[in-house]
């Protein structure tokens, strides 16, 4: 805590100012300050620096911050919408209702069957290297799961793409995919069936999508999700079919609905 000279360091003085030192350290610092003019002056300089910064920092924003009324109303509308579309949904990651658990189980089983029919080449097995590029989820681990929602409920709900997945669950997903040691920022824990299509907050609906994927990446999948939702809401595709197609093989679904073998740049 002390320099060789032996005055107090800026770090010690600032920690004391901010109340971040132990009682014992505080006692020692106070005793030193009583005896040392130089450190008392330095402490005042740091206090003044804080004062200057806070004054200017808040002054910078005083007249610039947009009104909170609009964003506040938007938040309330979103929360109200959530209450309408999921009126009886309990905790998203635990304590699922009996009805919902059955819906999830049935959907997961259906999608699992679809997944088993896929060619071996698209399924991944065993432990991956830490830099593995995951473009298609493992159907055994991520068969997909959807909430018990109909077309009207899905289309009146906000089109949510990226809900926050708790860190513990993210780790669990990475662990299941055998890439638990990977840099978390290398992957986005993505919803296989997007919440905008009724996708559920369930580990069977989550997979690690690699940011390193160059062609079939998250932006391409986002475009497919938008296209499918649009078709569902326009009545050109049933919700169940959309969910099954995106869960079965989203790349194949993309090729089918964009009529192309490669990602369309405009659609990204």
């Amino acid at each position, binding site marked *: 805590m002390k320099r060789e000279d032996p005055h107090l360091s800026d770090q010690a003085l600032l920690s004391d100012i*901010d109340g971040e030192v132990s009682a014992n350290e505080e006692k020692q610092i106070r005793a030193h300050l009583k005896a040392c003019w130089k450190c008392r002056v330095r402490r005042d300089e740091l206090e003044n620096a804080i004062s200057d910064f806070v004054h200017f920092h808040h002054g910078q924003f005083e007249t610039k911050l947009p009104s909170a009324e609009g964003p506040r109303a938007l938040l309330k509308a979103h929360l109200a919408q959530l209450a309408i579309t999921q009126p009886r949904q309990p905790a998203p990651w635990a304590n699922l209702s009996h009805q919902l658990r059955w819906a999830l189980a049935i959907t997961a089983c259906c999608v699992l069957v679809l997944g088993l029919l896929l060619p071996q080449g698209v399924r991944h097995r065993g432990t991956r290297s830490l830099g593995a590029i995951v473009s298609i989820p493992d159907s055994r681990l991520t068969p997909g799961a959807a909430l018990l929602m109909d077309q009207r409920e899905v289309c009146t709900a906000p089109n949510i793409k990226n809900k926050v997945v708790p860190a513990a669950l993210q780790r669990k997903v990475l662990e299941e995919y055998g890439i638990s040691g990977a840099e978390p920022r290398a992957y986005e824990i993505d919803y296989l069936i997007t919440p905008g299509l009724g996708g559920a907050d369930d580990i069977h609906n989550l997979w690690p999508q690699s940011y390193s994927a160059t062609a079939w990446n998250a932006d391409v999948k986002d475009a497919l999700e938008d296209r499918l939702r649009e078709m569902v809401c326009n009545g050109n595709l049933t919700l169940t079919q959309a969910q099954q197609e995106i869960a079965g093989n989203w790349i194949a679904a993309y090729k089918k609905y964009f009529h192309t073998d490669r990602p369309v740049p405009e659609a990204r």
Partner: protein
Amino acid sequence: MSSGLTDVAATRTLAASSVTDPGNRRDRLEEEVVALFDEFRDPLLRYLSGSGAAFPDCEDVIQETFFALFQHLRGGKSRDNLRGWLFRVAHNLAAKRYHRRRRDLELTAGWTEDSAVDPAPSPEGQAVFSQTRQRLLAVVKALPELDRRCLFLRAEGLRYREIAGVLNMSLGAVSLSLARTLGRIARRTQQGDL
């Protein structure tokens, strides 16, 4: 460096009656989330925009953050230090956005050359104010990203442990960063040797 925020606000809990009836609980949860929005929206907006994002982008991140908070609380997750939780989630959501857009943001939206409110009535006072502001601006702009984020979070009232949680740093690194930054500010504002 108090921001007026209290630890009580950061650890608010629901009233006991709110856990009995599900409908009532949801209503109270919405009220609680909106109340937290009223309390923390401006600090979050200052923090996010201080990193260079435009206000509309920051507002989007804040909406996502409070939506996530609603889900978090509805799921019965921990209510410990909700202020730290909000800043951490907002920070991560913003980082994710920038990562996906591959943006290289500079300090722009928050700290600008001509936007500060000038409280000094006299010409001499205004000159001093302007000079000090320019020096501060230069110091803050020259800070490494992590040091700047530490400083902005502390200015919003977060304790060292909360800052460490948001930025995934050690307590010692937070302490060292703030001391280094304030040492620079103290030196520059006194000497004016820019």
